[in-house]
């Protein structure tokens, strides 16, 4: 007969053996502190460039960068869910490319209430910049100026009909680019802005939008596409109609496919920003804020116009 004390000794021994055996396999590994980066979407040249810069800055400071994004640019629910996960995982700070700024204000205020710094990229911050929030974005005025200069040069002294593609209220930078572009062309009497077409995050819909303009204005001379999706849609619409040599298309933002399009001539030029610099600066500001320094005010990065000639020079 085994006494109750013997059973207790066996039981305690078994528990101790199990704990000692299993502990190395389940013990949490120490991880570096983390910052989160949630762009509008990922898997594009634009987002990969920003990732690369932010990751570099995070590593330099001994931080880990958590990176994830919705698979569609318009998936605001998924973006809110990723922001909530970052909060739940006690992130040190957030870099955000807002999918739909106004829809994210409540969530952004949660970060600010918890004194977690936020740096907004891709577009202006949807709430005023302050102690815990700032932005690093392309200089939208310069984007429009570069595009306007290029289009005016392509039109020559004759002028002609120009259309703007891709205006999207959920992406305020598209509205800013359009507004500045109109200002730059307002003094050119021979240039007529015939359409300001709505934008979308879906390429087939963007193609449809561009096609509507081409059908309505057969004498159109140039497009200014204010987003990467609008640019991709315009390329498709122009190619389907065989108008590549008669319409000048100037696009915006560095998407996966736009640079080959510039190289082959289906896109005249594209206004791009150094995305790696955007990502690096955003992460650097965030890490400085985590270290106790104040966030700087909104920072604008100078864009450049990429043409076929530039690509030839680089080859």
């Amino acid at each position, binding site marked *: 007969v085994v006494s109750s004390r*013997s059973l207790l*000794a066996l039981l305690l*021994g078994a*528990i101790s*053996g199990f704990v000692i055996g299993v502990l190395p396999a389940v013990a949490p590994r120490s991880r570096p502190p983390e910052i989160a980066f949630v762009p509008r979407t990922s898997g594009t040249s634009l987002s990969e460039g920003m990732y690369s810069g932010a990751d570099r800055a995070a590593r330099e400071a001994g931080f880990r960068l958590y*990176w994830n994004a919705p698979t*569609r640019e318009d998936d605001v629910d998924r973006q809110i869910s990723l922001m909530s996960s970052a909060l739940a995982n006690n992130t040190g700070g957030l870099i955000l490319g807002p999918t739909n700024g106004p829809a994210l204000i409540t969530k952004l205020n949660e970060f600010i209430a918890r004194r977690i710094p936020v740096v907004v990229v891709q577009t202006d911050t949807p709430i005023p910049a302050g102690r815990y929030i700032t932005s690093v974005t392309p200089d939208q005025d310069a984007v429009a100026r570069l595009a306007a200069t290029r289009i005016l040069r392509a039109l020559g002294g004759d002028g002609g009909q120009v259309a703007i593609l891709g205006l999207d209220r959920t992406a305020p930078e598209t509205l800013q680019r359009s507004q500045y572009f109109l200002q730059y062309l307002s003094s050119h009497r021979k240039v007529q802005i015939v359409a300001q077409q709505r934008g979308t995050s879906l390429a087939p819909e963007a193609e449809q939008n561009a096609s509507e303009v081409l059908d309505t204005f057969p004498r159109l001379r140039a497009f200014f596409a204010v987003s990467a999706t609008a640019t991709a849609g315009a390329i498709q619409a122009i190619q389907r109609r065989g108008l590549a040599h008669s319409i000048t298309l100037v696009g915006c933002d560095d998407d996966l496919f736009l640079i080959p399009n510039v190289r082959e001539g289906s896109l005249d030029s594209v206004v791009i920003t150094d995305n790696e610099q955007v990502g690096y600066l955003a992460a650097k500001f965030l890490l400085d804020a985590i270290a106790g320094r104040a966030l700087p005010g909104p920072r604008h990065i100078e864009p450049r116009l990429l043409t076929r000639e530039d690509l030839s020079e680089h080859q």
Partner: protein
Amino acid sequence: VRHPQLESEQVAQIRDHSTTVRAPGPDVHQRGKYLLLFALAAAVVFVLTKVTITVLHSTVRGLPYSDRFETGDNADWSAYGGNWKIEAGSMVNESDERGAKLVAGSPYWTDYTVQADVALRSPGEAGLIARVSDPEQGVDAYRGIYVGLRTRDQSLVIGVADHDWQEPWPQRLSSPIGLNTWYHFQVHLQGCKVNAIVNREHSSEVGRAEVTLDSDSCPLRGKIGLRSYDAGGIWKNVRVTKLR
């Protein structure tokens, strides 16, 4: 002579004229017995726990693995995005979500060959992922190796995802990618060397690529999975075998 700290009933005393020898009493024997039982149980359970963990973490546990999708049971698989269903002996992703994944297998598998028949339902990308860990819903939201067919540049792609995307270089295919056409994938993973061979159904080889990944960025262990990007896809005859 009695030891002042011990009670008389706890110590058996043997006396002669000049010396006193103390012998352990019954409680000391009992304590020794309990200690022995404790140590014995701890040692046995420790060894059993270690053996169980070693078996569970084995690099070959569950291999060879295959799924012909003959029943509606897809309990082995975990979806990260996409709209997946089993249909006529194949797994179908009806969504054209970018980076939809379906993952199965052991996180401890290391060197293995994964094979499957893959068809694209629309222009985009579809293929297999291997050595997958830390998967989440998102375009490149996993750590692992992707091998797939891409219609945009008619190529066989091998790349590494670690919540970002590194693509050494795409391998142009010898013939255009057909939609709803079966391609047989064989992906061999040994250390940081990845070898991929793609054959068109009832036809010869259309693509072959061999890449040796950087040891810094090379995932060394993980599950397998099905992945598509911007296109729906169909997969059948998934098979994983230990690499000899």
